[in-house]
């Protein structure tokens, strides 16, 4: 806080909102829940700014706040959250003319059936492009655990979607 004015921190927070939203959608499978999660994350981050050390990884710090918020909400309202029960999440908003939308919709639904811990590991590594170390920092586990969750998640998705199998539906 000494080296960063609140103003520049504010700009950095705003810059991370798009990726926080995308991570929140992948965790919750629901856009309005996702925006609530981002909102709560921003409020918490702002109130805890003093505990953030400038020069350390702001993205990891914000993502960690978001995923911890998600899991504590999940515990509180388990029965209300359809996502963890494998019920297909809200439909994707696909841009008109997007060629992959059917396949992508199926992929999204398959992703939503994965246990949250595997889904988040796969998203952090596969979509956000984080290292196992950085993903582990966010998830509060060992890099090796992230690695095994990612490979389990990939195997499950490939199984559900019949990727690479003879009976895979023609596209």
């Amino acid at each position: 806080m000494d080296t960063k004015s609140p103003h520049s921190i504010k700009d950095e927070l705003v810059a991370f909102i798009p990726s926080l939203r995308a991570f929140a959608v992948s965790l919750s499978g629901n856009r309005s829940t996702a925006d609530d999660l981002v909102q709560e994350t921003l409020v918490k981050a702002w109130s805890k700014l003093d505990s953030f050390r400038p020069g350390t990884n702001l993205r990891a710090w914000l993502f960690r706040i978001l995923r911890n918020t998600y899991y504590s909400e999940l515990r509180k309202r388990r029965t209300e959250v359809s996502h963890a029960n494998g019920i297909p999440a809200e439909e994707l908003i696909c841009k008109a003319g997007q060629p992959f939308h059917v396949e992508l919709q199926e992929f999204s639904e398959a992703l939503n059936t994965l246990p949250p811990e595997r889904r988040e590991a796969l998203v952090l590594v596969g979509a956000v492009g984080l290292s196992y170390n950085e993903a582990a920092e966010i998830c509060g586990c060992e890099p090796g655990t992230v690695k095994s969750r990612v490979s389990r998640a990939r195997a499950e998705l490939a199984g559900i979607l019949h990727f690479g199998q003879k009976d895979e539906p023609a596209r």
Partner: protein
Amino acid sequence: MSNRKNRMACNEPEQKKRSTTQMSIEEPKNTDEHDMSATTIQIDVFASGSGPQLSQEIQDRIGDQLRLLYDQVVDEDIPQSLLELVRRLEARKRG
């Protein structure tokens, strides 16, 4: 999507693993970090030594779709409500 159900039904062992893991995540009492590590151990046991390695082609395909999904949201405009929230937070800090 009934097609999906059929496909998943063919995948009995996968399904069993998945539901076992979910149960420990959703266990109402032990949902602290300790329980998370218990879940982890369970996953690691399943992960070690079973199942063929996915081909690079399939891994790439999964990676492509993950990024498409993720970037779709990243590329959206930030909702005004969130921008407004940051403005309010900043005003509060200054005031």
